[in-house]
């Protein structure tokens, strides 16, 4: 049957017919006999069959090789952390479950390794084995941010609620990492690990009471605590001069930069308490406070109470000295005698507040130094409790002591409705005049020309 609109490449005739040769369809030119086109010999789909081998029932489905490797990695991690068998089993179950889930089946092998670490982490948390995310990231040698992201996704998928780890619990496990016992380091640097841990835990508890731990990563805090504990166990000149860098080198741990800041903060807190020790004559500074650490930690609750009392007395005196009204002077002495007698600190703090508020209300609107002390240039009364509790309290987190300066609200904000007229002159200030535009374009050209000359 002649095929229209086809021409033979050999002779140019349009007389082409369908001719099947041995069941292979062909288009043949009648005049010269050349084959114009032919069909496929076999009707198999290109690139293999429509059903892949792994989907067919030809072979039993073997467990994925990466899954097996992942499970072995989980086992290895558990062994290196020396956790008990239950945690190992639980983490393997979790890993198998998470691995099969659609959000983890197709991720990179690196992420699958991180997933293995996260499974170990969550199993440790569920079975009350204290461990930090920082330790896991170190073990896996992975970015802590990536570990965090994978951990959160995994917890969402597996629907687990893991209890939160306390820093004091993790302290013991963490201090095992520091190789600072007698056979490992020279005698002058050695420390008994039990004593070291005990003192470091006490330092961490002190830090927890004074707002150093809240909101911070646990590992640098623990490092700072162990370093200070080690220094204070034998406060020789040599040890006191030993920097954090060198300490980490001999203990064979990786140094964290944040640990330096934590050391300064803990030393400040120790100084505040050290000043209250009755038998210390010299001034307590961050340089010499390490010698007093043993005494401070032993009597820390008593020193804490004394420090808070002294601080309140100092505040009351300041308020009293600067307030000009007599009613407040009468009430103030009675209030001073109370804080000395009581041990509960909350109510004495509240007594300072009504004193200050009375002063504010009875003041004649002149710049009262007492209120200036509390308001820091803020005129909104409702902000007073928020901004000044950092100055009022002896211990407060750094973000409250040094608050960010908020830009002052413009008064015209109240009149804005959203639909006002916008004048032309206002808008013109945002547009270049044609001359300016030409100059700008010229300068851009010159700049790009000089840059291309240089390169």
């Amino acid at each position, binding site marked *: 049957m002649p095929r229209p609109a086809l021409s033979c490449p050999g002779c140019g005739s349009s007389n082409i017919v369908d001719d099947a040769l041995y069941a292979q369809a062909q288009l043949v030119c009648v005049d010269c006999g050349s084959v114009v086109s032919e069909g496929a010999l076999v009707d198999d789909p290109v690139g293999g069959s429509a059903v892949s081998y792994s989907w067919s029932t030809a072979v039993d489905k073997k467990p994925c090789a990466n899954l097996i490797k992942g499970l072995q990695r989980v086992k290895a991690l558990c062994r290196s952390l020396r956790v008990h068998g239950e945690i190992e089993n639980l983490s393997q179950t979790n890993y198998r479950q998470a691995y099969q889930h659609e959000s983890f089946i197709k991720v990179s092998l690196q992420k699958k390794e991180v997933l293995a670490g996260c499974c170990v982490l969550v199993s440790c948390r569920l079975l009350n084995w204290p461990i930090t995310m920082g330790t896991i990231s170190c073990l896996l040698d992975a970015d802590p941010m990536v570990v965090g992201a994978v951990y959160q996704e995994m917890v969402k998928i597996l629907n687990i609620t893991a209890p939160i780890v306390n820093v004091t619990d993790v302290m013991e496990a963490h201090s095992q990492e520091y190789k600072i016992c007698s056979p490992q380091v020279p005698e002058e640097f050695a420390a008994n690990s039990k004593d070291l841990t005990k003192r470091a835990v006490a330092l961490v508890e002190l830090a927890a009471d004074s707002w150093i731990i809240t909101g911070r990563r646990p590992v640098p805090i623990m490092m700072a605590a162990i370093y200070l504990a080690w220094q204070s166990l034998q406060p020789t000149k040599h040890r006191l001069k030993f920097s954090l860098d060198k300490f980490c080198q001999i203990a064979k741990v990786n140094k964290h930069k944040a640990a330096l800041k934590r050391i300064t903060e803990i030393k400040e807190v120790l100084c505040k308490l050290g000043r209250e020790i009755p038998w210390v004559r010299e001034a307590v500074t961050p340089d010499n406070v390490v010698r007093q650490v043993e005494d401070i930690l032993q009597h820390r609750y008593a020193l804490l109470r004394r420090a808070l009392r002294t601080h309140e007395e100092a505040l009351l005196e300041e308020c009293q000295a600067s307030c000009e009204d007599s009613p407040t002077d009468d009430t103030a002495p009675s209030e001073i005698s109370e804080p000395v007698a009581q041990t509960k600190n909350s109510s004495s703090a509240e007594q300072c507040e009504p004193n200050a508020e009375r002063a504010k209300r009875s003041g004649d609107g002149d710049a009262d130094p007492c209120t200036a002390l509390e308001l820091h240039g803020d005129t909104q009364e409702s902000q007073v409790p928020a901004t000044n509790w950092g100055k009022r309290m002896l211990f407060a987190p750094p973000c409250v002591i040094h608050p960010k300066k908020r830009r002052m609200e413009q008064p015209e904000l109240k009149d*804005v409705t*959203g639909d006002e007229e916008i004048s032309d002159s206002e808008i013109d200030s945002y*547009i270049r005049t044609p001359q300016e535009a030409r100059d700008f374009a010229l300068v851009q050209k010159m700049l790009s020309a000089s840059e291309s000359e240089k390169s």
Partner: protein
Amino acid sequence: MDSSNDEALDIIITNVVATFRTRCHLNLRTIALEGINVIYKPDMGKVLMKLRKPKITASIWSSGKIICTGATSEDDAKVGARRLARTLQKLGFKVRFSAFKVVNVLAVCSMPFAIRLIDFTKKNRPIASYEPELHPAATYRIKHIKATIQVFSTGSITVTGPNVQNVASAVEQVYPLLFECQKPRCK
């Protein structure tokens, strides 16, 4: 719950994000050339324009979609957006201000007490989540008003929501829960 306190809680709106369309194609190079306070980002395909009077930064795409950020109230955002549309009009584009919508509002509030985050998370599982090693705040998501609240242990909270009304109701909802888990501020 607010009326039971002596002091009203001050909710300070720090950022309002709004979008609108100009219904016409914009030539970014012209804007970059003839506009003042303009930064051209050819690799991202947009132009950043900063206005002075309501302090706003706008990302302008050539399709005519514009996102304004940095306003401190919804009305402010609208004035800024209209000023921007007017500027583009003056530059010669046939701009029609349309589809103005406030997309996100960020507000900050400070409680007069500190908060025990671990308690708060335990009482409000699974709406609240807290991972101290990753972020110092606990996150509390209210699904039906689409608001997210980040609670810090110092008592400050940041609230993000689709509009100012939702943000205010989110603060009202979360206040009693925070009040239960407060920590005395001394010590």
